């Protein structure tokens, strides 16, 4: 009696361990495949220029400062064209829709979308949910890479003082 119970328990434990291992292995496989095809890479304008031409099917994010005076609305009234820069290179962006709350000329912005054949970044989304520091972290980083971080930071600090 006790032997069969012990056996049953052992079998049960085997089930449990087997199920958990199977689940973990399955999840790991799923995660790895998903990382391969649904992760969106972030590029700075310099990197975009370096890597171009970029496959128009690849979704990616671009971030930089909105070039002052570059924002214009196209004829249809809802498509907006602007350019982002990391002070080294500049990439034109087109976007139709309402720009997010924190969108400003001269400030940092992140857009998600794809490059078209003409070298314009067609944004399907301009990200609204970065924090209040006026600078998405990725943008700050690409500015550091291009070596213009200090300049921008000093300018921002000055604006804040005014």
């Amino acid at each position, binding site marked *: 009696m006790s032997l069969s*119970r012990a056996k*049953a*328990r052992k079998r*049960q434990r085997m*089930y*449990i361990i087997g*199920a*958990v291992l199977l*689940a*973990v292995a*399955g*999840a790991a496989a*799923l*995660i790895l*495949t*998903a*990382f391969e*095809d*649904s*992760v*969106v*890479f*972030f*590029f700075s304008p310099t990197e975009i220029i370096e890597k171009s031409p970029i496959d128009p099917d690849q979704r990616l*994010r671009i971030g930089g400062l909105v070039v002052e005076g570059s924002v214009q*609305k196209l004829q249809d*009234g*809802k498509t907006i064209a602007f350019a982002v820069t990391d002070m080294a290179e500049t990439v034109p962006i087109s976007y*139709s*829709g*309402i*720009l*997010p*709350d*924190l969108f400003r000329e001269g400030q940092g912005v992140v857009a*998600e979308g794809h490059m078209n054949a003409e070298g314009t970044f067609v944004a399907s*989304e301009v990200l*609204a*949910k970065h*924090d*209040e*520091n006026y*600078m998405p*972290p*990725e943008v*700050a*980083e690409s500015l550091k890479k291009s070596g213009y*971080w200090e300049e921008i*930071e000093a300018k921002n600090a000055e604006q804040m003082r005014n």
Partner: protein
Amino acid sequence: MLAEFGHFALLLIVATGLGQAVLCSPFWLRVPVHASLQGNPVLLTDAGTITTNGSTGGLPLNSRAHLIMPFGILAMAIIAQAALLHSFIISDFSLPIVAEVSHSSTPLLFRIGAAFTPDGGAMVLWLLMLSLVNVLLTLQLFGPAKSPYAQEDDGTLFKNAMSIMGLLIAVLGVATLIDADPFLRIPVAPLDGRGMNPQSQDILRVLREPFLYVGLAGLAVIHALTLSGLIFKKFDRRIAETLRFWTIASWLSLGAAIAINAYRSYSQQAWGNWWYWDTAENSLLLPWLLTTALLHCRAVLEKTETLKGWTAFLGLSALAVGWFGVYLTRSDLFGSLSETLNKPHDSVALLIGFCVVFAGSYYLFWRRGEELGEPRSFELVSRESSMFINSVMLALIAAVVLIGTIYPLVLRWFDGENITVGGPFYVEVLVPVVVPLLFLMGFAPTLRWRQDEMWLIGRRMKLAAILSVIIILFVSIRFIELSPAPLIGIGLAGWILTASLSDLWARLWRQPDHGESKYRNLQLLGPRYLSMTLAHIGLAIMLAGGAASSIWEEQVVVSARAGQSIQAGPYNLQYEGVALLAGENYATRQATFILYRHALPVTELFPEIRYYPIRGVETREAGIWHGRDGDLHVSVGDRADDGGRIVSVRFLPMMTWVWAGMIMMLIGGTFSILTRIVLRFQKNGVSTS
């Protein structure tokens, strides 16, 4: 001056927390001298440990001194919180924390709300909630209306849990003081503050915080009880019974925080989506997922005393992911920006505390988990195993969400490469996990404990299966071009809904007649069953709404002139123009729309663009109408070049179901907790179901 009192109170919280940890510690038992001093005969139990016969354990003096500690901590926490709120209310800018997130022009309500948004303020709130649940735990375990299991207990196990609570409070108190001391003062106060982040100036954002931290505090109690169960190798029905209130309470308040957060993202951002998979949201979702798993395993533990190890693991992990989530949302450890952008500190003490607490907890689990013992076993087809499988699935989902949240941060840290893990990743990974989970969820409540038969399940679920196949066929024939994922979602929602309802029906009408009314049958089902059914149906409704609104969403972006009407779904919006109005600390351009449904006026909507001059930031508030066939979501943008104004109108069919489903789940949890409390006081803890 009051801030210094608060600071002192914060220090005292740490000291009193440590005091509680020491006074309630079970290690006093190891010293027989104290027991003999006390005048009680010393008993050598068969386990080889020495206990006193006085059935109190603990301190040498047979005192209940330790029971005063929680009240002392609560008083300190209230003082600290009051001092902080006072500093915000009077706008005392000599405290950097106030100057950072508040301004003299901020309205009173949001000056109070701002007190919870910076790291230090959030920590004070967390400490307040922790000390509140600490007192509730004391009352539950040692108070006049204590549960029958607590009455049986000789006091050591539960006292040990109080000791761990004291320790947690002390650790978090120290972390508050080191990382983000809210009561620091600077000698020269700035003339005014930087103002509250306008995106946080929202009543929902303020409401979310207390719910989040009550939830996390409840998880701390679960952690403490689980840990002391492991220490004493008594992880049994008694613990499960004691955990019941805390799991439901944490599940409920974390769920409420998630729902509030979702609604806020939906209504405030111009591109309002209710779920973004961003770090803040994931850090709410993670503990909620594990608490949901725990909720079910705890029921199994209470009923059959099986799944001990797994339940204990979940009990420890729920707080672990909650704590880690708090750390993630406020740390820049993985970024390289802390030195220039944010505050100079990085929540290091919070991280170190996390590592120490959970290294200890998991070490103990590893050592003791094996020794818990499972008195009974169950078959593969049984209620226990279905709950176990689903809790593993929930834990897997949590693991996926955790990996998705951390992976980009780790990659950036190591490689300097920036990637985004967003919606597509989670959908791709989670669909294969969620589908079997929801399928099992449909019939798991009908399974018998210990052993059940496949053919019996088939017979029981016949009706539900047929109905849900009909729903899928109907939807897929009517909308042929539909992609499979949302269709599966709708099908599974139908499956859970019909399965829950048919089970309820069977229990109400096919039950042997008690010779009484059906109302009596309803009563016999008990609050647990009813709240469970309510929550399951709520999830199904939310799922259906989410799937449907994602498929049939219609969006129109136009440049509108006054008087122009915009068609979206069955609705017609007439744009009336924009008025410039003054808010309390902002200026707003408020647009007016008249909403018609089939040419009949329904209501007026007022989406806004607010401008907050203090931070020079604009925010956009959407106008939302919850109609019977879905939500109408309208937001306005800048002026277009042709003289019109850019208007974005979205019609989200069945979106109302998402909110209704969330509310139903919350009502289910509330109902369960309320009946629990009523029963406790009616019958002194005897539960009927």
